[in-house]
């Protein structure tokens, strides 16, 4: 069944009438996702690819029973869109936008946790349960990259996830769910939250962690393993081994400051916890092959 999104999930698209919103709604529908409604203020009554458009989330939830939302709203308006949907009872969010102000994110995450909701992103490619459903822009149709299989993937980046996933498929395996938590310094969901979900998912036999320089999420993952909160095999590939300190490497979250957040430190923590840490994306495939999953 995978985690976070399944073929049963009733999904709303906020900002469905925009160009990207419409393009990716088509892809999500093709992946098997139940998109039951869209919202664009002022466009109530229209329809996009047969999906009815509402002017407010409240109304969409009342009439279509949406549970999860893919947010295609520009960064400056993401907070209002998410607040609206939280108030309407939505429990799962994927915020795709890059450049969401960090103070907005503090508010969104705090409000979400008070409502018992989870947010993936911002600045994420989203979440896919391979062969079932997808929220975001995971190119599930590239069959040399994504196939149903026993490996869970948790990742901070987009293109690199394709790269690493292609080596999982190359090793004759495939993925249960691919969960993008995004490249921002304050992600709605942290690596350890996803590891806990994979731990409980019977279909997931092992997890591949795609991390990078900056922040403390990989160290937290190592701590979770040490404490026995995650017991499945974990293979980690971390980008930014050679990243210079005090320089933001694209992602706002990928910055080594005050000597903290270096990939070396993260690799060591994960290794000490018993995870297999590889130096190249291709080695993710070869090490999974050896595991006979």
């Amino acid at each position, binding site marked *: 069944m995978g985690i976070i999104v399944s073929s049963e999930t009733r999904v709303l698209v906020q900002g469905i009438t925009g160009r990207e919103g419409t393009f990716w709604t088509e892809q999500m529908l093709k992946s098997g996702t139940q998109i039951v409604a869209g919202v664009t203020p002022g466009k109530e009554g229209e329809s996009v690819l047969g999906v009815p458009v509402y002017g407010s989330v409240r109304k969409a939830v009342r009439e279509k029973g949406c549970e999860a939302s893919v947010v295609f709203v520009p960064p400056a308006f993401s907070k209002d869109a998410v607040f609206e949907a939280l108030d309407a009872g939505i429990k799962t969010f994927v915020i795709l936008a890059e450049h*969401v102000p960090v103070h907005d994110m503090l508010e969104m995450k705090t409000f979400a946790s008070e409502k018992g909701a989870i947010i993936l992103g911002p600045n994420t*490619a989203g979440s896919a349960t391979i062969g079932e459903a997808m929220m975001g*822009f995971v190119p599930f149709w590239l069959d040399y990259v994504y196939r149903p299989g026993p490996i869970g993937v948790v990742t901070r*980046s987009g293109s690199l996830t394709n790269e690493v996933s292609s080596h999982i498929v190359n090793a004759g395996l495939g993925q249960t769910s691919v969960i993008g938590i995004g490249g921002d*310094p*304050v992600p709605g969901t942290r690596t350890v939250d996803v590891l806990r979900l994979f731990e409980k998912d019977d279909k997931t036999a092992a997890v591949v962690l795609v991390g990078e320089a900056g922040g403390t999420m990989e160290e937290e993952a190592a701590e979770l393993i040490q404490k026995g909160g995650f017991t499945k095999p974990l293979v980690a590939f971390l*980008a930014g081994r*050679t990243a*210079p300190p005090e320089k933001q490497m694209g992602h706002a979250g990928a910055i080594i400051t005050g000597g903290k957040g270096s990939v070396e430190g993260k690799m060591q923590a994960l290794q000490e916890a018993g995870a297999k840490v590889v130096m190249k994306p*291709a080695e993710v495939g070869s090490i999974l092959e050896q595991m006979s999953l």
Partner: protein
Amino acid sequence: MKLYEYQGKEIFGNAGIPVPRGFVVHSPQDVDERPEESDLPVMLKAQVLAGKRGKAGLIQKYSDWTQIRDTVDEWIGKEFGGQKIQSVLIEEPLDIERELYVAITVDAASACPLMMVCGEGGMEIEELSSVRPEAIITEKIHVFRGLLPYQIRDMVQTIGLQGANAKAASRLFSNLYRIFRSLDAELVEINPLVVDGKGNLWAADAKVRIDDNALSRHKEYKKGREQFDDDIEYEAYQNGLSYVGLGGNIGVICTGAGLTMTTLDLIKLNGGRPANFLDFGGANYKNAANALRTALAIPGLKVLLLVTFGLFARADTIAEGLVPAIKELKPQVPIVMAVRGTGEEKAREMIEAIGIETYNDTEGAVRKAVELAEA
């Protein structure tokens, strides 16, 4: 975006945080035209965005206007931390009885504002946190409830302030938090926060960093050349590209920060030297031509390596931007490409039609680029 000390102090002053009386000069002439009430001695503080200026001798005390004029003349235009000094803050010296530290930043793991105070100031906080972490008191702030009076009382008491001092510090902490929130700051820091002989509190320094992603709602601040290490970095920023110079000879263009960092790591692992980080992923993937222009401007380039594995960034759209740009710019260095993702067959066809070899795997492309660079 980092603000200069004088900008930070202006914000502090307007919010009711006491700052030393002073003025900013941009030239020796400005010293001649100083405000009439300027007394001696004064502190001269070069306005730079990089740290450790005190150790570099860029904070000095003077009692003679001719000397002050000469020093300003010497400092303006001088290089420090990759930047030319453009202004000097001249202000009254403080009678320092005690130095404290206070800052507010974002606690990423707990997703809340975090206040840090310390009874000893002056030292770099990174240094202090590694030498004596127990000396720093941290207080998490609920983003909706705000900084509460009891939290302020606890902090003020723990650093040993009493009476009028405690009252002044309470007011200051609460004003600082208001600045942090209203300005979308990533960091506000006063180091040192000075207690003078009369028991008054003064922000002797001001460090303010605003979240770049929130600059659209703070239009009075705009990132200029001084926020970047070099001209190429600044130009890339203006074109919506993320660029960092790394000094090697292999130019790198990628989509996605993670894949870019991985490509740089693989270049080093294979014995090569990357010239740069350049990501044109996300919403900027149609920016391929600008990315190419930026990379080709790097001096000493031996080869250009382009790696994409698009999701949002479609391979065919990238090729559509890139192929005409290559034809127009006629790069003098060889180009190696690994272009994958949505529309990759069409992309490969277009690229190979102009005589550039494409690779299916990142590592293969990296090895080829290193080989060409070292040849």
